[in-house]
Structure formats: structure tokens, C-alpha cells
């Protein structure tokens, strides 16, 4: 049989990677009839990736220290080519992500898609919602401006009102009695390493479960 070079390369790769299996397993799947509400999960995923990409660019110039954080952001906004665009997308993208993830949760709730066999998908989803809020909370402090500084002071105080454990939580969040360079450093670490890593892992599990069980159909009167 005569085959072109490309076909040969494809066949070689398919033999080793199982591309055809991937196609039938991942892409050519049957699904119940969906509508636009079903796009919110993948929109959350898109926003997560977009936040990752823009965030990586921001870390090139951002400096997590109280003396330089604010100025480094000013520099990104005024002097870096397209810095304003990247930061603007990251800023608005954060708000959008919280909103889209929340509405995605609402749609899953309303259609009762958290029921058998998708209980775990929901459980992981709640984890994703919390992490997303955590990303918003830790990211807000990073520009080290007045609004963020005082909002974080109050928010950590609130966490400190837990009976018995309050003192410990407050210290763990702030890295000391007050907001300081240590607070900024650990919020930065959480924002760019810990939470994204946890989010990525949970998203992986979430997606695995969705492919395994398929998307739920919209309920009719018999359900």
C-alpha cells in the first residue's frame, strides 16, 4: 500500500502512543444533548489555564517584597510592553473565574448532577471552588496596595476569631503578629505554587471522573 510520509509518521506514533484510542476515548464520545450551560465547566478550565499563562508572565517582573511589590506592579503597568494587557487580563480573569466556577456549580446543583454516580465529581468540585476562592484571596494581597493590605488585615483577623485555634491560624496566615514581608512571601508561595498545584491535581481528577461517567443528561419528568 502506498502511503505518504505523513501517514507513515502518524502510523509510527499511533503504534507507540495509541493516538486512535485517544481519539475514540477522549474526543469521539457520545454525550446527551447539551446546551450553553454545559460550557461553563470547560470555560472554568480555560480561565484556569489563562490565569496560569498570564500569571507566569507577571512573575517575570513581580517582586514579592513590601518595598518593591507595589513599584514592580507600577512598572508592569507603565513600562513593560503589553504589561498592562497581561495584568488586566489576569485581574479581570480572576473575577471571571470565581463567577464562572460559581455559576457552573449552580447549574450542576439545579440539574441534580451531583447524584449517583457523580457524587465524587461534586465533592472534588467543592474543593475546586474553595481553591479558586483561595487563589482570589492570596492574589489580592500581592500588589501590596492600601486596599489589599487592610482587607487582608481584616480577613486574617476574622480567621483569628476561631475559638481556641484562632491565635494559631492568625499566626500561620500572617507569619507573625502583623502583616509583614513574611505574610507577602507566604501568600505569594501559596498563590503561585501550592494552590495552583492542588488545583491542577483536582482538575485532573475532576476531568477523569467526567470522562468516566459521561456528562449527565438534563432531567425529565421521570427522573
Amino acid at each position, binding site marked *: 500500500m502506498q502511503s505518504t510520509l505523513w501517514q507513515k509518521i502518524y502510523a509510527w506514533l499511533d503504534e507507540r502512543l495509541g493516538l486512535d484510542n485517544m481519539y475514540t476515548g*477522549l*474526543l*469521539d*464520545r*457520545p*454525550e*446527551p*444533548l447539551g446546551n*450553553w450551560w*454545559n*460550557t461553563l465547566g*470547560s470555560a472554568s478550565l*480555560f*480561565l484556569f489555564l*489563562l490565569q496560569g499563562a498570564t500569571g507566569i508572565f507577571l512573575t517575570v517582573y513581580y517582586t514579592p517584597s513590601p518595598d518593591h511589590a*507595589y513599584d514592580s506592579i*507600577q512598572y508592569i503597568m*507603565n513600562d513593560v510592553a503589553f504589561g*498592562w494587557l497581561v495584568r*488586566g487580563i489576569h*485581574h*479581570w480573569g480572576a*473575577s*471571571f473565574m*470565581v463567577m*464562572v466556577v460559581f455559576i457552573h456549580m449552580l447549574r450542576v*446543583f*439545579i*440539574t*441534580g448532577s*451531583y*447524584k*449517583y*454516580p457523580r*457524587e465524587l465529581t*461534586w465533592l472534588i468540585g*467543592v474543593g475546586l*471552588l474553595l481553591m479558586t476562592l483561595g487563589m*482570589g*484571596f492570596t492574589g*489580592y494581597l500581592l500588589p501590596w*496596595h*492600601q*486596599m*489589599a*493590605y*487592610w*482587607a487582608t*488585615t*481584616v*480577613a486574617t483577623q476574622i480567621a483569628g*476569631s*476561631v*475559638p481556641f485555634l484562632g491565635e494559631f491560624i492568625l499566626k500561620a496566615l500572617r507569619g507573625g503578629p502583623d502583616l509583614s514581608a513574611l505574610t507577602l512571601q507566604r501568600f505569594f508561595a501559596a498563590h503561585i505554587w501550592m494552590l495552583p498545584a492542588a488545583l491542577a491535581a483536582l482538575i485532573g481528577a475532576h476531568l477523569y471522573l467526567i470522562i468516566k461517567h*459521561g456528562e*449527565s*443528561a438534563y*432531567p425529565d419528568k*421521570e*427522573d
Partner: protein
Amino acid sequence: MNEESKKKINEKYERTLLKGERFWPDSIFKDVIMSFGIFLLLILLATFLGVHDSPKADPSDTSYVPRPEWYFLFLFKFLALYGQIPVLGKIEFIATIIIPGIAMGLLVLLPFLDKTPYRYYTKRIFPISIMSLLVVSMVTLTLMADIPTTAGEGIYIPGITQVIAGLIVPSAAFIILTLMNFVFKTTSTKVMIWTTVVSAVLMITFTGATLALAPVTEKTEAAVASTLEERIVAGQDLYSVHCVECHGEDGKVTTIEGVEGLEGKAVMAINGKDVLYTLNDATMAEVIAYGRPDAGMNPFGKAYNPEGLAKGEIDYIVTFMRYMWDDRFERPVIKPLFPALAAGEVPSYDVHIAPIVKRYCVSCHRPGKDSNAYLMDTYENITTSGDNAPSIKAGDANSPLLQVIQGTPIPDPDNPGQNLVGVMPPKSTLKADVIDAWMRWVMAGMPRTAEEAAALSTTPTP
């Protein structure tokens, strides 16, 4: 759930799949359009709305009203309203931990609490009602977030409507719905839907009333200088007000003159390499914040001086000193203090005189400084205050102010040989265009706004 209903669910699902679509390309197509739409919207927002600016964090400025990200606003508002409840309101952790904890717990446990196989909407009225009211609460609390919860003493009607909209109606609705569901198990679906709808309408109405009644508090946030040029100009203005009396307009003073208690004191010229090369930005900011108390320079930082400068303001001064005096920095092009005057054009207070006064005069002529009680902080004070007021009379070229800025002191009639008022500013001379602006302004009758000035201007006929 027993094996039989599981089997039924799975079989039904297989049947719906046969009538369904393919993930590729049907679903993916919609997903891509959605994500792309969001991406476009983000670019538009980033381009046209940008990112809201706020001044640099200043740990000493405890008067700042904190404001979290908008999606946490509803929690802050809830806490504020909860704090209004007598007795219970004092037990903070109920609102900060217990209630949000219960809400999250319910969310986590939802699949295990609601174990029925029913998925159709009318068979799940109770959870859907509770969730809808929660969402309405979050929205209304967010809308009311900026309205003060209390207003000191007396009856404050927006305060009452807020508590009704944000606490009383939702709690009552949650309790009624729970009772309907678990105690009077026979409540019809219709009654529950009506309860939910009526509660939601009440919450929205009282929120609307709050928004209509509440006095709009104007939020004044200090303007943020963002470009380098704006920061340098902001620094120059601050420097002119706070530092000129000792260090001189261009920082080259080496012997302080005319400052009480420091007369004749020798200082280093702060515009020279000795100072600029040995102090980096951080130490420079520290010197300004902490002052040189032993040598006579008082502290300027808010932490040491309640009326002092914010951290960001001190940084502006440092930026100004660097770019204007330090020869290692390239001096950017700075807009002139005021727009140049054409022939026949009359300057106004707003556009021309106010910036001049701010830069050259206010440092000595402001409340708290004894310069013949002549305050130059407002239009009224400039025209009326002072021991020998008025210092300027409209249309009078011999006004004392015009004389002293042109280097002619006013002699004291009672003490021959002494001056009543020395030349102004005492240790430097104003540039010719500044003096010209003063002259034209006084001669034209001291117009305040640019419009008034424009009406007085004459265009020279060519």
C-alpha cells in the same frame, strides 16, 4: 440507593446517549465559542477599564477603610449586619466560623444528604429554594456593601431596611421552608415556590429601599500618580510644601536661614553627590520618615508624626530627588508648572496661580506657620488674610505681594531701616514667567476659574 435504582439510572443514561450528540465536534464547538467570547471580553475590559489603582500599602495609616475583592463583599456585609444583633452579635465566631462552616459543610455533604434518586426540578423544590434564596442574599448583600450599617445615634432608616433585607427575611424564609419540608411534610410544591418567590421579592424590595434612602457617601481616594512623570511632579509638590524652608527649592542650601531655632545651622546640600550617592532609595525614605531629630529635622513619616506623610508620598519625594538631582538618572521631560501664556491671555487661579503658590509659597504660608499670619492655601485666604492684609488688590500694580516677589521689600513705617515684609520667597527669586503670571492675574482682577479668565482675555488683533 439500592442496586435496582442504580441499574435503572444507568440504563436510562445509555438510552439518552443514543439520542445525544458527540463530544467532538458538537460539544467542543460550543465550549470553544464560550471560552473565546470570555477571552474577548477580558481583553476589552483590560483595555477600556484597566485595573483600579490604590495607593501603596501604608501600615501606619490605620484610618483606611478596608475593601476586599467584590466576591467577598457579601461576607463582610453579613458580618457587619450580624454584629448589629443584640447579645448574639457580640459572639463573633458564630458569624465568622459557625455559619460559613455550616454552609460549606452542607455543600460538601450535599450528595450524601440528598440521597433520593430524584433529579427533576419539581421533585427537589426544597434544596433549589434554599439555594436560590442564598444566591439572592449574596447579591443583595453585595449591592448594599458600600452603605454604612449604622450612623451613630438616632434612628437610621437605611440601617433598619438593611437588617430586614439582609438578615430577617432570609432567616425567616429558611426557617419556614425547613419547617415545611421536615415538619409539615405535606406542604405542596406550589406553597413552597410561593414562599421562595415572595421572600426573594421582599429582599430585593428592601435592598432597593436601602439603596434609594442611603445618603450617597462620596468616596475620596487619594489620586494615584502612576506614570514616572506624575510621580516626580507629585514629589516636587510635596517637597515644595515640606522641605523647601530648610533645604531650599533646589536642595542646595548649606546654611539654614529664616527658620526658627535652626538659624545659621549648617546642613549638607541634599542635591549633592555626598548625599545622593551615599543614601539609596530605602535609606533616603527612612531618613525622611524618621528625620534627623538631633540635627533639627523633624520626622515626616506617619508612624512618628500623625500629620506626616504616607509611605507612598515619601517615595514620591525620593523619586523626585533622584530624577531631578542625581546625575546617574536621566531627567525625563516634565510638563511645565502651568501652561505658557499667550499675548493678551489672562491667567486664572485654578490653572496658573494655584500651582505656583503650591510650589513656591505654601510651605511657609499655611496653617501652623507664622509668616505674618498670611495663609495661601485657598483663594479666599490669599486675597484676604495676613497681618498687613490685603496683600493684593485687584488692578493695583503696587500691591505689596507684587512688590516683594519682584525683590522690593516693604519698609516698616515705624522703624526706619527695618523691613515690614522681606522679599518673597525669602531666599530665591522667581522666574520671569512666574512674576509675569502674577502681574497679569492681579491686573486683570484675579479671576478664579479658567472660564472667567478666558472672558477677560484679549486676543491681539494681528
